[in-house]
């Protein structure tokens, strides 16, 4: 009898437990059903680490920040030329040092307050303040006094100097003045970077007073975040989506077509492609590597040269790689054509330089190379023989190509290793490491040859070349050349056209010494709904949603005919 009673109680418990669990499930789902479909959706890649303009470092974050905020200037979506943003106009002194920005009168925050020059000064101070620990604070080091303010800290982590030592001044609510350490012709390109977007001083300080412990998180929540860009933050669900809603108080709101836009977080490339193919999203910027070649033949596949380079770093301290002739032989014996045609297959271009093509007004220097790969291989063999390797000489010790675990990197490394073996008789082993371990190995320069890439924040050759100066934390090759450092230092303070000339000379030195082996220049690979208008290809793969709209049939037919 007791047993029967027990089993009846059990049944009841099981029944209730099941119901409770179902209820919990339904509740969790209920939270998800509230959102209506957005006007437009795109896949934004990894979940943004933050929406704080000062703290962002990655591309998905930049996209959202640029939609939410607007800096002094913005890039033209077609040409990437600087256009007025929050600043209506600007004046630069003849020596290129003093810049004065005049803010537009109609600019308002989403809470109705005007955007002032004081907001910009506050935001730039915040970016530089070491307590913000902003990854891109160094972007403003071109301003007089900024580097010292950001890097000299006391034992509590606060800056030792007052912000008054930094030459950024709000003259009046609509005039911002900046004095640079040295002339910097690309300042406007820099100011369009998302890290230099302003934040609302008053709302931030109110949040700080109201939530002394948690304000750094609270002020970024939807509902709290005050922005000044074409969109405001409507909803944010970690790892799912960020919903942007049109900011009707934006100065150019009449040219913003979409009321709501969803930025989805999805990283699994097959899933991303499935979302696009089923019409759930209108734009994706990455595809599974094994399908890239097939997808690139589609009507809706759009590609343009992208300001990024794929290259190998060489450990110049490790013999025999310390000999520039050996490095040149290795660089020459890479069959770049084969890599872009048979491995990457998405309009990537063979690269013989440090700076990829596509920067307006820049023609750099390439490494010396012949007309065909056969010539190059011949020259490479000659160079190795000159160093005493090869038939009749010493045997070249086996070297190791390190890359972070990823199929596409392995495929490229295999082609290169194969090419070195067949053309130079050099045996190269492949070794993969998990991303963070790989970065650590590279940082400690504990490798022979290490896969690398570099992507521009804005169109400027300086960024690509500067990293190989002595002691730069991004050099990571052990290479150092006083003449090179000198040229880069001079270029930093020079005006055009002298600046470009100095940088070209520096690139020539780099391409003679070859601490890096250039491989190919990136290309953008976007799959875009043919109906999505206002979407332009450019060298930074920037596609501000501000300009997007759905095309009518007539316009679509015209675009198709072109």
């Amino acid at each position, binding site marked *: 009898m007791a047993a029967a009673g027990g089993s009846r109680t059990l049944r009841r418990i099981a029944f209730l437990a099941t119901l409770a669990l179902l209820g919990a499930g339904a509740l969790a789902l209920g939270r998800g*059903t509230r959102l209506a479909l957005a006007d437009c959706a795109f896949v934004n890649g990894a979940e943004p680490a933050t929406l704080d303009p000062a703290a962002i470092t990655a591309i998905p974050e930049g996209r959202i920040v640029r939609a939410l905020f607007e800096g002094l200037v913005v890039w033209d979506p077609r040409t990437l030329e600087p256009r007025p943003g929050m600043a209506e106009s600007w004046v630069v002194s003849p020596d290129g040092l003093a810049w004065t920005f005049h803010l537009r009168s109609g600019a308002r925050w989403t809470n109705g307050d005007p955007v002032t020059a004081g907001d910009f000064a506050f935001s730039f101070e915040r970016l530089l303040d070491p307590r913000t620990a902003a990854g891109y604070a160094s972007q403003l080091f071109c301003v007089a006094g900024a580097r010292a303010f950001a890097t000299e800290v006391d034992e*509590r982590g606060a800056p030792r100097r007052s912000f008054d030592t930094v030459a950024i001044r709000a003259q009046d609510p609509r005039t911002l003045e900046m004095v640079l350490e040295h002339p910097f012709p690309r300042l406007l390109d820099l100011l369009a970077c998302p890290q230099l977007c302003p934040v609302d001083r008053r709302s931030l300080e109110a949040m700080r007073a109201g939530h002394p*412990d948690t304000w750094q*998180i609270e002020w970024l929540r939807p509902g709290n975040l005050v922005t000044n860009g074409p969109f405001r933050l409507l909803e944010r669900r970690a790892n799912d989506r960020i919903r942007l809603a049109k900011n009707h108080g934006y100065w150019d709101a009449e040219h913003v077509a979409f009321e709501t836009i969803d930025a989805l977080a*999805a990283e699994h490339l097959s899933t991303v492609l499935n*979302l696009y193919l089923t019409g759930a999203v209108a734009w994706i910027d990455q595809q599974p590597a094994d399908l890239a070649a097939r997808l690139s033949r589609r009507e809706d596949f759009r590609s343009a040269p992208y300001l990024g380079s794929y290259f190998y770093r060489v450990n110049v301290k490790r013999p025999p790689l310390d000999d520039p002739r050996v490095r040149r032989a290795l660089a020459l014996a890479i069959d770049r054509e084969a890599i872009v045609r048979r491995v990457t297959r998405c309009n990537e271009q063979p690269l013989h330089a440090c700076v990829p093509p596509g920067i307006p007004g820049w023609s750099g220097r390439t490494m010396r190379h012949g007309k065909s790969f056969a010539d190059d291989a011949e020259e490479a063999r000659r160079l190795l023989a000159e160093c005493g390797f090869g038939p009749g000489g010493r045997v070249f010790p086996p070297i190791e190509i390190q890359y972070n675990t990823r199929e596409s990197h392995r495929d490229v490394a295999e082609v290169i290793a194969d090419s070195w073996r067949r053309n130079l008789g050099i045996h190269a082993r492949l070794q993969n490491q998990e991303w963070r371990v790989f970065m650590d190995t590279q940082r400690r320069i504990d490798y022979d040859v290490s896969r690398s890439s570099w992507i521009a924040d804005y169109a400027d050759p300086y960024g690509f070349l500067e990293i190989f100066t002595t002691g730069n934390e991004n050099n990571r090759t052990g290479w150092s050349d006083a003449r090179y450092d000198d040229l880069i230092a001079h270029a930093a303070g020079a005006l055009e056209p002298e600046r470009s000339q100095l940088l070209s000379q520096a690139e020539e030195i780099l391409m003679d010494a070859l601490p890096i082996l250039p491989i190919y220049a990136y290309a953008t690979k976007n799959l875009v709904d043919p109906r999505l208008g206002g979407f332009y290809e450019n060298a930074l793969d920037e596609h501000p949603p501000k300009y997007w709209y759905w095309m009518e049939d007539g316009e679509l037919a015209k675009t198709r005919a072109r």
Partner: protein
Amino acid sequence: MIGFLARRLVGFAVTLGVVVTASFFLMRAVRGGPFDAERRLDPAIERNLRSRYHLDWPAWKQFLQYVGPLNLDERGAVALGGDGSRAFGGVLAGDFGPSLRYRDQTVGDLLSQSLPISLALGTFALLWAVLLGLAAGVLSAVRRGTRLDFAVRLLATAFVALPNFVVASVLVILLAFLVPLLPVAGWGSWRHLVLPALALGAPVAAHVARLARTGMLETLSQDFVRAARAKGLPERLVILRHALPGALLPVASYLGPAAAGVLTGSLVIERIFAIPGAGSHFVNSALNRDYTLAMGVTIVYCALVYALNSLVDVAYRLLDPRIETEAA
């Protein structure tokens, strides 16, 4: 029963302590840090970041600060990086700290958003798997040797062997592309739940069917079943009232591991279907060296699996009175 639960609780505390300690130090022993990137930060800035999250402290001190409840930071900048000073913090004070990667969210925020989603997914997967598996297993045992039995056994073996991401891909091809009934991925309505729940539950259903079939066959050959039949009870009652509880025993003992498997197995399914559940944090936090988030996920999953297993043990004792008697 109370003694049993008390013993379980002590075991839980010890297990959690070991898991927390081991994963805390293991994680910091792995090379690479949370702020490493292709573009390295300016050294001065990286120093600031590290000190903000106390990564410049010796490991033991970081551990004490993490576990709490005493706040060791003389600057008063506690977990959240605020300016106000708090005397208490750390896991023991219920604070998992800030995420090192997601600067806009605390680990608590991230878990409270993602865990209900994983739980909903797991519940539905487990529910259909158990119901269908049980029905199929019982049916195939009762109709032993027929074509139906053969079909159930074949399908069960197939789904036990097939990894759930393969099942997921096939489901996507069938129900999202060939017959566009359901969304291919994402989250937001019940329709987004169907495919992942099917894929996640498939191997469980197969296991349950096999266990239920074996259990049923064994019970059906017992004397008390023969006695029930001899009494002239209708076959339906014999099976449902007398044989089924016996057949449930192996299934019940499998449910603990099954629930744990569904919870932890969901990380692959969540990735394939772009579901914002806790499973994705499991993998990504480790890859990102997001120490605090990884610790948070580990602690929560450890607690969940332990609780589920205890629940199954309790259910088992209730289902089979012999066990309780032996324990007493």
